[in-house]
């Protein structure tokens, strides 16, 4: 029944409320993403960006509201079940497995894939995006620089060959030149057809590459619109682009 009620959006989040124990982090978040879009979610620290991603990926189960992906209800899933449906999340702070090698970190992303050939192909593709990883295959993930870890975290997610890629503050703590590289790759991935949900505090760069954006404040979506519209919006300019 709920299946029928959902609309045709690729991902549709409706009125979700998520909690950490007693603390309510989301007070009814609504958003949707269509296939092929880059959508960005911006907001200041503690606004609920990460919690929104975690609710979609199943790391946090919303107490109220619904989430549909390709028409399927996913808000009751455990994280690995949602991941198997094709949603990959690159977590905030990268969360590389520090004592696994770069190669193993990537292989974890392909855990569900049985076909060795397919795994090798994906590995090659990932190394195409991030040639740096190729030189470091046998190094423990924890010994890499911040930028390299971000690339590894993205590469690991790409090993899942996701339909929807969610990135949580990929530019955090990185030098501008690395940030540029990361954003270039996000654009490239999108050009090749990948749907992307990008969470950023770095609003300017995020809005530049996004088709649409949402602004979240203390657990509520307060604004939504085209990337270019939000960029010129008075509130956004004052709060996030200053």
């Amino acid at each position, binding site marked *: 029944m709920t299946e029928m009620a959902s609309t045709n959006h690729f991902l549709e989040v409706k009125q979700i409320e998520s909690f950490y124990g007693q603390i309510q982090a989301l007070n009814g978040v609504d958003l949707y993403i269509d296939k092929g879009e880059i959508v960005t979610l911006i907001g200041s620290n503690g606004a609920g960006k990460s919690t929104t991603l975690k609710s979609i*990926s*199943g*790391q946090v189960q919303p107490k109220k509201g619904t989430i549909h992906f390709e028409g399927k209800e996913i808000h009751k899933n*455990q*994280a*690995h079940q949602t*991941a*198997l449906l094709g949603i*990959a*999340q690159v*977590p905030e*702070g*990268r*969360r590389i*497995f*520090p*004592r*696994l090698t770069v190669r*193993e970190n990537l*292989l*974890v*992303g392909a*855990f*569900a894939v049985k076909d060795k050939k397919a795994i090798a192909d994906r590995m090659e593709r990932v190394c195409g995006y991030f040639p740096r990883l190729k030189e470091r295959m046998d190094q*423990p993930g*924890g010994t890499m620089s911040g930028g390299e870890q971000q690339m590894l975290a993205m590469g*690991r*997610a790409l090993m*899942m060959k996701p339909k929807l890629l969610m990135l949580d503050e990929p530019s955090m*703590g990185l030098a501008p030149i690395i940030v540029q590289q990361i954003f270039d790759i996000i654009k490239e991935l999108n050009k090749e057809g990948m749907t992307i949900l990008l969470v950023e505090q770095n609003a300017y760069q995020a809005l530049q590459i996004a088709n649409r954006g949402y602004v979240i404040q203390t657990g509520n979506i307060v604004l939504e619109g085209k990337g270019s519209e939000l960029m010129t919006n008075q509130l956004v300019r004052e709060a996030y682009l200053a």
Partner: protein
Amino acid sequence: MLQHIIQLLPQVLVDGITLGFVYAVVAIGYTMVYGILELINFAHGDIFMTGAFIGSGFLFLFISLGLMSSLPALLVFLIVIILSAMITGGMGVAIERVAYRPLRKRNAPKLIALITSIGISFILEDLVRFIAEWKTGNYIVTAPSLFNHTFTIDIHSIMPFFNNAKFQSSFIVVLVVTIIMLIGLDLFVNKTKWGMAMRAVAQDRETASLMTINVNRVISVTFFVGSALGGATGVLFMLQYGTIDPYIGFILGIKAFTAAVLGGIGNIRGAMFGGLMLGLIEMFAAANLSTLTGGLFGSEYKDVFAFIILILVLIFKPEGLFGKATIEKV
């Protein structure tokens, strides 16, 4: 004095290595579960004990069926150890499912899980005691022996400053099987997909689940492997030392846990090394304490000696000899 110590060295090595490998395999069970759940699974020592009893139960069964005389001892041994390992492995999975997982779901504090594991430890001890008394009339059981041929290493004739060392054929069985288990486990953890998943879950459970890994299933696999190895080691212990009771898992468990801490809790190779070291130290102490202290302390103080070593190691290297590489959390 030194001469005396040197004389006994060959026997100390034989006994120390046997005991050390037993500690090593049991230590792995503690360290794997700790690595993944940060839980000291006190029941693990009793899984070892249960393995010893299940193994001897099978041996008695085979005797009563008249199979012992018709089958080669090695074959009987293999059947018994594999069956016992499967059963204790299953028990480990069941215990995790029934006792630990519900606590995890509710985010219960770690202390609660620890106390639960102590409770399970008592339950296993009493259950085994009950069954043993019911079946044999006594909870101390003398197991049938399979490999009791005695060999002598005649090292004295080559190097006269050594005494000869003696061992039973079961020593070789214990040695070979524990080494196979240790190498097998090392390969499993480092070279297979499930081993990799286990390491990933140990390092970052949340992120592993984002990468399609079913964390609960990995935890079940961990409990199965650890408990199967623990139970198999119980069978080896039963063959090597002959007499078992429901409380052997307690002391041995604490020592194996000590070995795990010695090697750096959570570190599998560290646990192997810690076990071997502890076995050797303990047997060295058993053979020489009396000589070293001029008769003040006898070999019965060997455990104190082992624990003093542990305390010293922990004072100077709290993360254990091979402590885990630190995890940087951003």
